[in-house]
């Protein structure tokens, strides 16, 4: 992470002057944040958002883009990491872009986060039943099957997808495609 010079250094100086205790790494703890951004569905809006992250040295862990119910508006779900100061800057810089309509950090609220995964695995007479068992446990769907390979579709929180892929590792995984995370606040009425 780029941050060692924490913004709160000002507060820390003041705390020192006042003889107050200072926590180690105060204000510098790095957390993962899920941010949703509504943007104009125009050429260049996506690249402007991504460009802002790279130009200012912010991190993107996952990013997804798709239309909303309004075809003129796209919704981006961005997972990023940073300390309080960096996240505040990320949000302000996002809001400052003219193509963004709404910027929301879901991390401090109740929210639903889902990811979709397609996984293609080679099977044979010996492991076919075991593979199907794993799929049943995770409540996945078979979306394609050939005499040698099966493709599963699975939706869930990222941790569930991770666990599913791990359970499939002993078998011969041919290909994995993950959607990245989409997220939404619970009971959010705008």
């Amino acid at each position, binding site marked *: 992470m780029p941050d060692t010079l924490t913004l709160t250094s000002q507060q820390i100086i003041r705390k020192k002057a006042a003889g107050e205790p200072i926590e180690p790494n105060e204000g510098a703890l790095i957390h993962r944040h899920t941010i949703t951004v509504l943007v104009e569905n125009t050429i260049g809006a996506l690249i402007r958002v991504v460009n802002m992250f790279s130009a200012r040295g912010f991190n993107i862990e996952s990013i997804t883009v798709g239309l909303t119910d309004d075809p003129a508006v796209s919704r981006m779900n961005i997972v990023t990491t940073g300390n309080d100061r960096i996240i505040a800057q990320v949000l*302000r810089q996002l*809001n400052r872009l*003219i193509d963004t309509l709404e910027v929301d950090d879901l991390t401090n609220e109740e929210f639903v986060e889902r990811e979709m995964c397609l996984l293609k695995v080679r099977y044979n007479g010996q492991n076919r039943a075991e593979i199907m068992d794993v799929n049943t446990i995770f409540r996945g769907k078979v979306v394609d099957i050939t005499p040698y390979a099966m493709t599963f579709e699975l939706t869930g929180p990222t941790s569930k997808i991770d666990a599913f892929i791990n359970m499939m590792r002993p078998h011969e995984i041919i290909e994995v495609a993950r959607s990245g995370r989409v997220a939404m606040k619970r009971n959010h009425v705008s």
Partner: protein
Amino acid sequence: MRYDTTLKARARQAGGNGVATAQPTGQAPPTTMSGAEIFLRSLEAEGVEVVFGHPGGAVIKIYDEMARIQPRFKHVLVRHEQGGAHAAEGYAKATGKVGTVLVTSGPGATNTVTGIADAYMDSVPIVVFTGQVPTNLIGNDAFQECDTIGVTRSITKHSFLVRDVKDLARTVKEAYYIARTGRPGPVVVDLPKDVLLAEAPFEYPEAISIRGYAVVAEGRPDKIERAARMIAAAQRPLFYVGGGAVNAGAAEILTEMARHTQIPVTTTLHGLGAFPEDDPLALRMLGMHGTWWANQAVQHADLIIAVGARFDDRVTGKLDSWAPHAKIIHIEIDQSCISKNVYADCAIMGDVKPVLEQLRPLVQPKDTSAWLAEIEAWRQECPLAYEEDGKLRAQYVIERLRAKTGGHAVVLTDVGQHQMWTAQYFRFLHPRSHITSGGLGTMGFCLPAAMGAAFGLRGLGSDLPVLSISGDGGFVMNAQELSVAAAHKLPIKVAIINNNFLGMVRQWQELFHENRFSHTDLSDTNPDFVKLAEAHHCVGLRAASPEAVDAVIEEAWKVTDRPALMEFQVIKEEMVFPMVPAGAATGDMITKRLTPNSFV
């Protein structure tokens, strides 16, 4: 530090969501015309007075229509597109209006990049129209093709690629609106050739709505009240004023408020002129080459009221030790500047002028006499001074130019030692009287910007002299614009502080790099500046001793129909002091020449 997610929503409620009020444009009923003519008519409707441009293949239709319809604005043919971009900046900074640039595709566009980046860093409203290859060739590596939108994405407030002639007029309107509102900045509009050739009816939109663009004017009342309480409680308060105060037109209310409350004022490089520097409350500039007393005041203040300033590293030095005792009130229009470098105890999002107007009735006169006496002691301790030993020094030249103008001039500087000496010694009185390249630090900015400022003042009917002060290094970088200024009979006073060195780099080499003057000696490559001036149809003058300075200035002021260039041959050894070394604490200033590296 909770992030305010309601920001854009609040701005919408306040009616500031980018909906411009209708302006009568006086247009005739729509008739069909070429995209090029629609473009020119849109500039007319926008009230553009002057366009700095250079033709080329992709925009040839615009220049053709310009010759045919003779639009109401003036087109100035610059000799390099970078000069055009800086000229638009100078025009914008001198007048507060939006500057306009028109260039062709490819190299025409890339040549403006430095000017666009400069405008972005210094919040200068300019709109740059770039030609582009026809839409069906975009991406094909066509002749003079360049992904202009891509190249400029990180250095523009916003940019547009016009793909349909029907969108052209609306895009022009939005570009100007975005450039001038909120925190001003550069906007690029890319115009493919086929769009300029296509025909469409012309109607300039009366109102626009950009739903994602929030312009907040007034501050939140609870924050204003909190700021007023903090000001009332402070014993050692200080105004720290940046370019935002000048942009907002808040110099008057700020000055009145500082005098009313008896709170001293220090300004950044871009804040110079926002508060008259001959006022006893003026501490002059702070930061790396600011005054000793301004920086001491910062280090001892218990309240800093930041007004349209962004806590740049050249202001703060080492962040951990900057203003250790001060609470911070930050009045700022750009949300991303709040708590970016320095934590704001009370952040007021809003336009500086309305916020100060909201705050003004809530503040009472304060007794700051003890605090002011303390600052006065620092002023006595380490005044701005230079040696007077018969050798010509830049500081003396600046003081004589100040004496000639009485401070009533628009002064532009380039980047380097002369820039800091002008900031230290000129004592600015008026907002918009000091124009420089601060954030990006662009050598070659000054002369074309002075030309732009001169056009701006001419349009305002102002007879203030325009004074361009450059170093010998930076001047050469855009010297070609001299002939443009001469062609338009602009009586710019062009001072060159010539020490035959890249002086500021030389200073760092002497102070921090053990006198290894690597590639900073220009004596072999500098032109004869007097002959250079004459070759560009200007008057050239030269002074090499203090005695000759006044005569040269007098001679230059007699020239009224073209630029007068004054070369002042100064000694190369002089350094800018005081100085906070880069990355050092603001309290640790070098105040005079020491043995090299003795302070490190």
